[in-house]
């Protein structure tokens, strides 16, 4: 085993929450509102239910063998060479997702906060911080998560509370009358951003110190993350209206700008930015970590951190060469991300389970364990 660290179930939950919120908290209100209009909150609600089903699927994959991470499972189920081949494609997927997250934080910063700073520098700073985390290992990342989680969580909750007085119920009326088809169609692209990407946690799940609670915490993490996503989308619709939410690239940030009920609580939209920095930092770090872990498995290296430095610099290029401009990127989010992520996030786990069943790997394992027990 390459990673020797162990994390506990609570830390795993936090990592999952951070990952679920990561990019979606600021991207989802806009994309859902532009296709589902006033029903976007229903789309997000339904999507998160499907998200829990995906977690169920992923837990089933983990059941094939609790102690093997996804790269080991590939070789275990498909055999050494096919497994390595699939690993290559899977790593490419993780690489692109990590680059995408890096690009998103860069785009956000250059649009709203640090307008004159080159995007490369912002990406460099973020990736270096993540690199530091990856070098220190999974245990350190998880503990950092424990420290930063309250900040991210409460700044989002506070934002929701502060804008709540400005909510107007008529903005989401009539409920599910116009454009119902759109609301259902939008579920698919919405699944792309956090839920199909959750598959990377199959590389971390084996390192949770107890298996039962680990699985449960996967559900809890996705549940909490989805609830926050839902609340933010709903607030964005209620306060800004579906049209304004769809028109803005980062409606969550605009929502933060709306906080001005009490005199002394004005101009605290940076709360949203802070929540987003922390969550996306963990998203990048987790993806980056899984990427390094996978590379180490692919090349049979001794530790995860061997290749992390050159990979960090490659990630920046991946982010820069992700998309020519923001509009192309948003089209990608709506059209091609979900099928792309779905291939790895749902099709691959499915094939894994099916192959394992067909080759009866599951049963053999159980028998062996029974024999051991007696």
């Amino acid at each position: 085993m390459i990673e020797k660290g162990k994390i506990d179930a609570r830390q795993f939950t936090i990592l999952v929450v951070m990952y679920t919120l990561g990019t979606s908290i600021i991207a989802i209100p806009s994309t859902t509102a532009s296709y589902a209009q006033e029903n976007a909150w229903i789309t997000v609600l339904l999507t998160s239910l499907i998200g829990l089903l995906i977690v169920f699927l992923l837990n089933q994959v983990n059941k094939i063998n609790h102690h093997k991470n996804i790269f080991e499972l590939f070789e275990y189920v498909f055999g050494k060479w096919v497994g390595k081949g699939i690993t290559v494609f899977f790593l490419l997927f993780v690489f692109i997702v990590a680059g995408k997250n890096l690009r998103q934080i860069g785009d956000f910063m250059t649009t709203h906060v640090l307008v004159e700073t080159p995007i490369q520098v912002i990406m460099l700073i973020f990736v270096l911080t993540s690199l530091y985390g990856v070098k220190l290992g999974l245990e350190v990342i998880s503990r950092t998560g424990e420290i930063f989680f309250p900040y991210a969580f409460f700044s989002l909750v506070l934002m929701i509370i502060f804008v709540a007085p400005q909510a107007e119920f008529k903005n989401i009326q009539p409920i599910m009358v116009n454009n119902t088809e759109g609301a259902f169609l939008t579920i698919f692209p919405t699944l792309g951003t956090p839920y199909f990407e959750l598959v990377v946690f199959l590389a971390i799940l084996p390192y949770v110190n107890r298996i039962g609670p680990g699985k449960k915490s996967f559900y809890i993490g996705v549940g909490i993350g989805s609830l926050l996503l839902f609340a933010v989308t709903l607030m964005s619709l209620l306060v800004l209206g579906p049209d304004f939410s769809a028109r803005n690239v980062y409606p969550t940030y605009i929502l933060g700008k709306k906080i001005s009920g009490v005199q002394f609580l004005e101009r605290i939209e940076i709360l949203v930015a802070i929540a987003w920095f922390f969550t996306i930092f963990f998203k990048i770090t987790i993806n980056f970590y899984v990427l390094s872990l996978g590379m180490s498995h692919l090349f049979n290296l001794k530790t995860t951190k061997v290749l992390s430095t050159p990979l960090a610099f490659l990630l920046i290029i991946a982010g820069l060469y992700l998309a020519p401009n923001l509009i192309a990127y948003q089209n990608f989010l709506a059209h091609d991300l979900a099928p792309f992520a779905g291939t790895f996030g749902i099709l691959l786990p499915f094939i894994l389970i099916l192959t394992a069943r067909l080759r009866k790997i599951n049963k053999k394992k159980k028998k062996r364990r029974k024999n051991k027990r007696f």
Partner: protein
Amino acid sequence: MLKKLQAIGLCMVLTILSGCWSSRELTDMAIATALGIDKEGDRIKVTVQVINPSENAGQSFTSRTAVTTFTTTGDTLFESLRRLTTLTPRKLYLSHIRIIIFGEEYAKQGIADSLDFISRDHEMRTDFHFAIARGYGAQDIVNILTPIEKIPANKIFSTLESSQDFWAPTKVVQLDELISSMTSKGKEAVLTELLILGDLNKGSNIENVQSVPSYTSIKSSGLGVFHNEKLVGWLDENESRGFNMITDNVHDTVGVVPCGNKGNLTIEAYKNSTEMKGSIRGDTPNITVNFTAEANLADISCTIDFTKQKTIKKYEEKLAEEAKNVMKDSLEKARDLEADIFGFGELLSKSNPKKWKKIEEEWANIFVNDLNVDFKADVNIRRTGTTTQPFLDNISKKKQEE
């Protein structure tokens, strides 16, 4: 050797992490507080009110004005704002804008083109207000100095907010509301008007704030009505009040009815709420507007007996009737202007989405001719202030005895 290299590496990191890349010091910024937008031929004329920092902070004040304005023209709003750098000593900083004023001529030709920049630019926030300069250019308003509040933009901002809160006819409109009512099919936008009272030319002079009554002042009393992005007409004070009553935007206001033989009864209505309901029965759309208010007696200048419950009841009904009339007047005016500023169409589209689809195309026509609007009003007088029976009665009795 390696230690040294590590040290150099760390130092290089420090230069990146100090976070000063796109920093802008306070001394490099010209903080804009108000923006006036006018039309000049085909071009846009922009007037910016900029804070004069030495006059607003620090101990010693000179005789210079607290703000100064710059004007320039350009093909688009952004172009003209950038062209302002040829006039201003520093680059403009737009985040602290409190109010954006459109000139009447410009508003008549449509304000949509400048709204796009305002919502797109990252420095622009969404918490400023909009207003229209009635009868004048926006430049004229931005140029006026005001007493009490050193920064005129702040004065206008707080005037609008306080008059919305304590005097019904004005309304503060923010960017998201303005844009969504312009794009929504069953709703039209309104913006507060700003008037100039007094001598226009003296207003921009420092003498305006040095004399006890100002020569020139800015007043806000009615609302400008838009059809899509174009200004089409005005609501006067009473009609604006009616508008706010219908749209449930009255916090605290004053109502006057005649009483007794001569004189007036004034109430302060402090708890106002309006409920609007829309329905489409058959093909005719119906709207019911239900206005309720709780009031205190504030000012009585007639001789009536206020100890009797019957009198209270009678005046409650009179006040309710008055409220209904105000709302009806407002509706009539809106029908004249063919602008559904109350959002009746939007209301119907929420309550009867399917039937709304059928009438959506002809809504402008239906709003003017076929729409059936029922007004209901209910006023309850709860308290009488610190006294009960007016003493005017006794004075007139004394007069008769003499």
